[in-house]
């Protein structure tokens, strides 16, 4: 009745690959709107993989977290962000600090690094989802790079959220999810964080007439 674990594992790996692909796409994407959409998509895949893991391992609380993710990351956050972007007319991100191809190259390097790092660990994982840890790590690092290279506040936040996704993926796939309390706490924090960010966007807007991070470089050792 239960599909052969190998198949589940393959599916999971597929999702994982999808996530990685999306983070590369986000890394190369300039339009803020499509970034948000990509983020939503990432969330969706996350939900899928989580449910898959939950189903295959028969863990109830993972369904919860899958649902949570669905609500939070697929619907709520993208919706909020899109509205923000519309309100703040910040569709376009200006040219990133490092041009796209170079970023890609760095990204590839990081993926290799992450895999290499995860190899010994995933070897001793007990779950069927052993190899995904490396991918999660790779997603986190890529998100990091994205935050570094982007110039607009919104896109930086996108990077932050992508990183959060990576973490979530790591939690679900590698360890069958954290305990419920923790999940809730994390979700709450993310939500509040995003709200605060929203407030910030408006405040920054009213102070600096733009969300460009170049305005936020005045505090330094002169």
């Amino acid at each position: 009745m239960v599909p052969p674990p190998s198949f589940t594992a393959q599916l999971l790996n597929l999702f994982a690959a999808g996530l990685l692909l999306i983070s590369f796409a986000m890394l190369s994407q300039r339009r803020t709107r499509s970034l948000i959409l990509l983020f939503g998509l990432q969330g969706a895949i996350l939900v899928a993989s989580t449910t898959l893991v939950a189903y295959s391992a028969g863990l109830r609380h993972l369904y919860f977290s899958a649902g949570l993710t669905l609500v939070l990351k697929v619907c709520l956050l993208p919706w909020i962000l899109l509205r923000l972007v519309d309100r703040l007319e910040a569709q376009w991100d200006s040219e990133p600090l490092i041009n796209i191809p170079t970023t890609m190259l760095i990204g590839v390097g990081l993926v290799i690094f992450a895999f290499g790092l995860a190899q010994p660990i995933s070897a001793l994982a007990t779950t069927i989802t052993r190899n995904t840890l490396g991918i999660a790590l790779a997603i986190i690092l890529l998100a990091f790079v994205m935050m570094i290279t982007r110039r607009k506040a919104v896109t930086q936040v996108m990077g932050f959220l992508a990183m959060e996704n990576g973490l979530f993926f790591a939690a679900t796939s590698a360890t069958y999810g954290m305990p419920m309390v923790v999940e809730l706490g994390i979700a709450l924090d993310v939500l509040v964080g995003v709200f605060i960010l929203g407030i910030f966007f408006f405040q920054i807007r009213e102070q600096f007439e733009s969300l460009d991070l170049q305005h936020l470089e005045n505090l330094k050792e002169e």
Partner: protein
Amino acid sequence: MEMVAAPSLTVLLALVAGWMTLGLAGLIRPHHVGLVGRALFPLGALIGLGVALVGLAALRPDRLAEQLVLPLGLPDLPFHLRLDALSGFFLLLQGAVGAGISIFAAGYFRAGEGTAPGLLCLQYHVFLASMVLVVVADDAYFFMVAWETMALSSYFLVTTQHRIPEIRRAGFLYLLIAHVGAISILLSFGVLQGGSWKFTFDAMRGPTLSPAWATVAFLLALVGFGAKAGLVPLHVWLPEAHPAAPSPVSALMSGLMLKTAVYGVLRVSFDLLHSGLWWWGALVLAIGLFTGLFGVVFAAVQTDMKRLLAYSSIENVGLIFSGIGLAILFRAFDLRLFAALALSAALIHTLNHAFFKSLLFLATGSVLHATGERNLGKLGGLIRRMPWVAVLALVGTLAIAGLPPLNGFVSEWLLLQAFLSTPRIPQPFVNMLIPLGAAALALTAALSAYVMVKFYGVIFLGQPREPALMKAHDAGRLQRLGLVWLAAGCVVLGAFPQLALTATAGITRAAVGDAVRMGSWAFVAPLAPGQASYSGVLLWVGILGVVAVTFVLVRRLYHGRVRRTAPWDCGDPWQTPRMQDTAEGFGQPIRHIFGSAFRIDRELPSPWDSAPRYRVQIEDRIWRALYLPLGRGVQRLADAVAVIQGGRLAIYLLYAFLTLIALLVFVL
């Protein structure tokens, strides 16, 4: 508990507590000069005498060291106190000299600009108390606490007139160097405790460290205490801080505080490190001699009387340390008697210097009060307006110039005797070099006479260089009392050096296992009667006798008629006070001979200008060669570091990212 076992320590603590209460009492009515001056400071002086007595009691030969533990301090490290001959000697010094200074201070401080007298009184007595505690502390922590409290209280005393930028700068420099020195001392203790994790001095006496570690400990201690003592090149704070402070405080710092550094070095190198390498001694000797020469040469070219005295303090500290160096050297070759001789010389010079340097600083204080002038170029002829101060200062001047039959000479004599014993050292290079050391010592002594003639002559002799000086008034009664006390000390120690010598016997016996021979009641013969002997008291008798006899004879055989006229001066009719040598003029030969030591910038008047002015400014090369580059280096580093905080968030994230990657690679 131990309270019973340590009577004199208990008394000492009571006295210290007395000082503290006096200080706090000052806070009751901070601005009431009468209370502070007429009541508190004299009481403080009395307590000082008590401290001196405790020290004296501890110096009795049959006396064993007392120990006491207070229920204070760190959990595993309560405050330990210990009173042995060495601490006793320094207690005697601090008490006796401190008493004189306190009496003087009673008549000195007055309300006005700067810190309120009451607060001053607090800081002053905390300063005294902390110095006393430094010499009885018997564990590293308590020592450091007392040591830094001393630095801190003296810092506040120095910056009494904190509205003057120079004084702020002086205070800052002083506390900075003091603190760095303190850290170095602390590290030295860290080595000394030898992994036993017990910071009591008892525990440190126990283990014999490996030569390498011992050397580290010794050098750290030397740096730390040298910074406080003003050894070149750590001396730069001294000529700034001493003039900045009120005169009694300068006296305390120069006469007492510098000596705590001497105490520290002795404690570490003769008590905690019970054996030493010979080159330590050579090093200390070299530094000491260089410091001495450096100090006296710079003193000779000063134009500010307190700066002059400050530099002369550097000189004397140098002499003391050369004595210590010799002692270490001799000990390393197990020449006990000579080690004892050198050590006694150093200790006695410490005592003497405390007396005459405080005396002179206080005298400058009186002059400062009477005239409001510190610049030698604006003084002169005060011997007629303020005879008391002049006469007492003369005693100090002759003493510090190292002239018999006063006390300054005795210690220099002992030091030279010690130098003369160096051929016994079985180390060819050392005893080849020692003669040069002796030469440097002799030169220093001779130069200090030069300096002191300049000091005394320009301030008290000649004609007043400013009309205002004619209104100068002599010191008040309390001030005189203090000066007389200190001057008497100089005379007595000069006449009966064997008193001081006996006082050091116990110390040297404990430190190097031998003591100098005592000679008779009138004679000092440290090595052997036939070999070298000196009698201060008979010299006094001789000189006074001959002078008296000559005087009487001249009067009897001839007559005592005197006619007062204008000075002759080779018949040169018009003479103005401006024709006499200025301080700069008096320093000129030194500038000429030791020119390479200074950084001189001079303004020579052109032949044409109507009002020709001559200005010369002497600077310390070491300041420019060492400290300014250091400051610049730090500045440059700071500028470089500041780039890190560039203000761009992406870069900050990059740092975090790279750190992460680096650590991951590190654990990989």
